[in-house]
């Protein structure tokens, strides 16, 4: 790369020192160089940008378009514009509201559990002595590396009435005996689904919180300790307020991720016993039953829900995504 971009790189490290040209360069030269840099910047970053748009914007536009037609692949010639009738059908279907309810329930419960558990794990990793730190961090990364489908099978087989050992191990607990079929009821199915989701994704939230913890100045905590604050007081008054941004980002990301839940539900119940989630409903409608019009409508509604969650998080909780991510 040329010296031009080296100088630009230096200038970029101090965004406050306005503008490009240092010393006595003329305005013309400066703007010319800025133009060169903009051109090179887009030349390098453009392909990635175009690919990202192509793989998301195009499909969502197509989905919006398809959602306006009565369109079944089993009868492709009957494709006809039906002016939003698909949305009326979907929104007046109790199945949709059931799936939305279950999805929301799973999202809220997993995020709450993961926040508490993830924070506890982050504190453990943060405080652990050096010799243990590596072991703990490695162990916590294992669930992250395991594919969701494998984790779903592991949990499914553990609880399954035929091959499972959970019923035998926990038969002493009230409500559990050898004949308990976890996947025959909504509540118990959701329990296992949520447990597997929590197990698989807590490492991510816990690593984000660990990074947040590392950014809290140690002097603050030490000062509180000197002032005689208890562990709990230090946690509530010093640590948590100082890592609010990291917590918010972690919660938002996990919420958006949990809202798209699909793999474990597909493997464990495939939506039986009122455990259907939105992604599964969309999948079954469009790819299972080939109702492209209706399936697209559900896809668009799911997309709108995700945007809604983002918007609510940014407005209500004032999550500054870019800011919290350090982008200035």
């Amino acid at each position, binding site marked *: 790369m040329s010296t031009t971009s080296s100088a630009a790189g230096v200038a970029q490290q101090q965004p406050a020192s306005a503008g490009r040209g240092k010393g006595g360069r003329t305005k013309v030269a400066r703007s010319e160089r800025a133009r060169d840099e903009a051109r090179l910047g887009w030349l390098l970053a453009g392909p990635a940008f175009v690919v990202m748009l192509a793989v998301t914007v195009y499909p*969502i536009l197509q989905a919006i378009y398809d959602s306006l037609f009565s369109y079944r692949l089993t009868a492709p010639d009957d494709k006809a514009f039906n002016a939003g009738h698909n949305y009326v059908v979907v929104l007046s279907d109790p199945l949709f509201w059931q799936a939305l309810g279950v999805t929301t329930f799973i999202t809220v419960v997993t995020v709450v559990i993961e926040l508490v558990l993830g924070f506890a794990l982050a504190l453990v990793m943060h405080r652990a002595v050096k010799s243990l730190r590596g072991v*703990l961090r490695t162990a916590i990364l294992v669930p992250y590396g*395991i594919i969701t489908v494998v984790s779903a099978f592991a949990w499914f087989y553990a609880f399954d009435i035929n091959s499972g050992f959970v019923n035998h191990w926990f038969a002493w607990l009230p409500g559990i005996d050898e004949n308990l079929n976890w996947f025959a009821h909504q509540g118990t199915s959701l329990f296992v689904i949520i447990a597997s989701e929590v197990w698989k994704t807590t490492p991510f939230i816990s690593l984000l919180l*660990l990074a947040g913890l590392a950014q809290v100045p140690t002097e603050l905590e030490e000062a509180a300790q000197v002032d005689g604050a208890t562990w709990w007081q230090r946690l509530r008054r010093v640590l948590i307020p100082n890592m609010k941004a990291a917590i918010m980002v972690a919660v938002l990301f996990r919420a958006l991720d949990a809202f798209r839940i699909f793999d474990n539900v597909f493997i464990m119940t495939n939506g039986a016993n009122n455990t259907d989630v939105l992604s599964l409903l969309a999948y079954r409608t469009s790819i299972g039953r080939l109702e492209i019009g209706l399936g697209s409508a559900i*896809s668009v509604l*799911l997309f709108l829900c995700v945007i809604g969650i983002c918007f609510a998080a940014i407005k209500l909780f004032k999550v500054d995504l870019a800011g919290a991510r350090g982008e200035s």
Partner: protein
Amino acid sequence: MSTRLKVGWGVITVLVLVYALFPVLSIFATSFKLPSELNLGTFWPGTWTTSNYDQILTGSAKDLFLPALRNSIGISLIATFIAVVLATLAAYAIARLDFPGKRLILTTALGVSIFPVISIVTPLFNLWRSIGLYDTWLGLIIPYLSLTLPISIWTLAAFFRQIPWELEQAAQVDGATSWQAFRKAIVPLAAPGVFTTALIAFFIAWNDFVYGISLTSTSAARPVPAALAFFTGASQFEEPTGAIAAAAVVVTIPVVILVLLFQRQIVSGLTQGAVKG
């Protein structure tokens, strides 16, 4: 450290290890059970057998499992490679140059990463069928970019921001040509970040399930997670539990080894990309 503290940390470490490893152990144990022992409700197999592994690697289920393994490796590697090349160029520009639209690119990456996969897959299913990409490698590689590219851009941009780019100038002052300066001073600093990003992107591609089950129909392109879900037993009376568990272990072990080897890099990559940006 006091003994009480030592014991306390010992207990905590064991708890964390059990939490993190238990489901892995449980599927590992299942994969070594004889069919007759599967329904006994025990955790460990009474007699350890490799018959489930024989079945998926050389036996009756090898035509289901081996092509899926090949597809998963090939498709994930290619999707990772493309994402990392494109993201390296973009992240270099973001970290190094000042141009209008930098923020737009990062925001777009953020937007793409929260996009519900199912909203992409319905239109692609229809389009791929009509243009012949359904059930092909390319038909999965393209949508996989929606998973691998955004995180690659964020992670690499975070890595590249920390590189002291002045080094390059210093090398030039010492008489290196611009290419030499870039290669000798910057590439060695950037390589670990690129490698870590590739690893994370590969995990994400390897984990995909929705695209895998929606955009493929045969062993021509079906990746492992989808193949596991559609696995059926040797006969309709035999549950494929043992074979699925064995296949799950085979696809998990390499990933766990990678995690163990590169845990330090993965942690820094994940957290920097996500928190520090």
